């Protein structure tokens, strides 16, 4: 097995539940800017079940990418992970050493980055970049098995073997994205984080690439976090959806229920603003400004824009709680239950 985290001694394990492959607890990330602290991820907790597909939606700047990258400890300064736990199979990634974390990347938790168009090194052939990735996790030899694995993953993302000899600029956008997916599954990770993997592609290619991603994910049995804006895409692809707003996770619910019966007022507005078949009008949009993360509002992040605001929403931050089975929401409207 290429996986390394499993071999960690038990004492690093925190009490954990077997049905959670990834368990994120109270994660807090901020950017230290000249103007002050930007709280991009503010006390976020959620979990991922084995083989599950979790969607993560939210408007631009709500902290999705920051959250995704902090799970793999890939953030650069001025970003600082201020606290929390990221338990992958019971092991807290945030407490690993640099070298342990390096080995966990790709082998246990892989990234398909936002903007895959520029995610391949333009100076290296595709094959070299794939080889590089495998070699970094091999302790010795195994050249033939390495090559075989590379051809395997290329085949499973429906690419010809010949692309190993191509430079990235010789590939189309969709092909590059497939290379990134191939890279992601190269070492059979337990969790794949896909950050808007198709946002730069046109709709037809987008659909094909998503189908491929879905297929390799289920073949692999890995869990996936799919970050994106597109609720339509989410509806087709994921099992559960998490909604981010101003650096906070405001709701996590199964995908069907979030469309049928959104709980959080923000989710309601988000779903309500989608163009439906009956009313073919444009997006209604949500009135009001996106919150400033430099000087966030007190209490609930959403209260300045919330149509159902209660008096103590301005004072008290609502925690994310499970109000019905598998339905998590952070809103004072549901405090009673």
């Amino acid at each position, binding site marked *: 097995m290429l996986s390394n985290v499993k071999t960690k001694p038990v004492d690093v394990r925190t009490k954990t539940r077997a049905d959670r492959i990834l368990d994120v607890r109270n994660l807090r990330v901020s950017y230290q800017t000249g103007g002050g602290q930007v709280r991009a991820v503010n006390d976020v907790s959620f979990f991922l079940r084995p083989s599950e597909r979790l969607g993560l939606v939210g408007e631009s700047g709500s902290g999705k990418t920051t959250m995704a990258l902090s799970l793999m400890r*890939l953030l650069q*300064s001025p970003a600082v992970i201020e606290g929390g736990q990221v338990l992958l199979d019971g092991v807290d990634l945030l407490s690993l050493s640099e070298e342990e974390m390096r080995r966990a990347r790709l082998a246990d938790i892989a990234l398909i980055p936002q903007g895959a168009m520029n995610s391949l090194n*333009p100076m290296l052939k595709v094959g070299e970049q794939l080889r*590089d*990735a495998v070699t970094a996790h091999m302790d010795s030899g195994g050249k033939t098995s390495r090559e075989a694995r590379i051809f395997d993953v290329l085949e499973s993302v429906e690419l010809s073997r010949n692309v190993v000899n*191509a430079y990235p*600029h010789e590939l189309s956008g969709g092909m590059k994205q497939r290379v990134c997916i191939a890279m992601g599954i190269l070492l059979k990770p337990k969790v794949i984080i896909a950050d808007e993997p198709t946002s730069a592609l046109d709709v037809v290619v987008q659909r094909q690439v998503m189908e491929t991603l879905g297929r390799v994910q289920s073949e692999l049995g890995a869990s996936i976090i799919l970050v994106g804006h597109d609720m339509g895409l989410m509806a087709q692809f994921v099992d559960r959806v998490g909604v981010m707003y101003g650096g906070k996770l405001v709701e996590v619910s199964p995908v069907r229920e979030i469309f049928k019966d959104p709980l959080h007022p923000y989710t309601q507005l988000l779903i309500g603003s989608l163009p439906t078949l009956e009313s073919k009008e444009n997006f209604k949009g949500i009135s009001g400004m996106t919150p400033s993360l430099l000087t966030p509002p007190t209490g609930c992040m959403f209260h300045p824009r919330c149509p159902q605001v209660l008096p103590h929403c301005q004072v008290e931050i609502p925690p994310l709680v499970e109000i019905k089975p598998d339905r998590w929401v952070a809103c004072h409207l549901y405090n009673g239950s």
Partner: protein
Amino acid sequence: MRGLDLGYFIRRIGMFLLVIFVAASFNFMIPRLAPGNPIGAITSRMSNASAGIENGQAMFEAYRERFGLDDPLYIQYTKYMWNTLRLDFGESLSAYPAEVWDIIGPAIGWSISLIGVSVLITFVLGILIGALLAWKGTPGILKSLLSLTMIGGVLPYYLLAMLLLYFFAFTAHVLPMSGAVESGMARELSWPFIKSAFRHAILPASSIILTSLGGWALSMRGLMVNTIGEDYMLLAEAKGLRKSRILWRYAIRNAIPPQLMHLAIALGHVVSGAILVEIVFSYPGLGYQLYMSIVNSDYTVIQGITLILAVSVGLAVLIIDLVYPRLDPRVTYVAESSG
């Protein structure tokens, strides 16, 4: 998939020919545009002088004939260009009947070795220093130490040359003050000769290296910062590559081609600086010979050296241009799509 792109090569070689053409045209025009009719002054000076020296009249006639000074301007120009194309610069005026080539020839070797080696050292060191300055993993102390190389960039070549000459050659006597080897030494590939040449080259080379290193490091640092900000660096880290691997194969490797382009752009300036360094150290390269021929009003040699300097830099740039596609696979592609 990636063959030799003929269009690219033809364009580059055309560029090289253009350099020769423009440099030669400058050579032709400058004396004729200069106020006070220097050509007339030269010929009258020569005809005066020729009375006094042996072969003087022959030299004067040869000069008139060679440049067709009695012909209309366009014929003079054509003749001049034809001679230039054959790299035929005629005879030296101050050392007649010696050929211009007899003076330029030995000088070329010294200049190319001095400038070539200095530029190579500076370029490699500049890449390393700049890369380490931009890399987050570099210890702070090392960064501050490396930043010291920027100080040299503040002084012009010739000033540092003078200072080094003063301290190391004049005051401390540890290194020779002038020349390329001990005077009177036979030019042969023997151990003492190489040792002497090396000792003589240390100060001039240091002048070139120390003054330009900071600039290269700074430019490399800028390129590295850009490279490090690229999306593919994130994926490289997400792949779990080792830090050293990312530094060499992804960051430095990718910043080298644009840095090489900077070199191609800056080479003319580097050579300009080296000319002055040679003069300060009386280093018998092209720069020093150029100076001597100005002192002696040896116009044929001046023209020859100016042209050879332009041709050499042009050739070096051509080589960089031809190597470049090997380093940056995107180049041929870009050339194809735009042309």
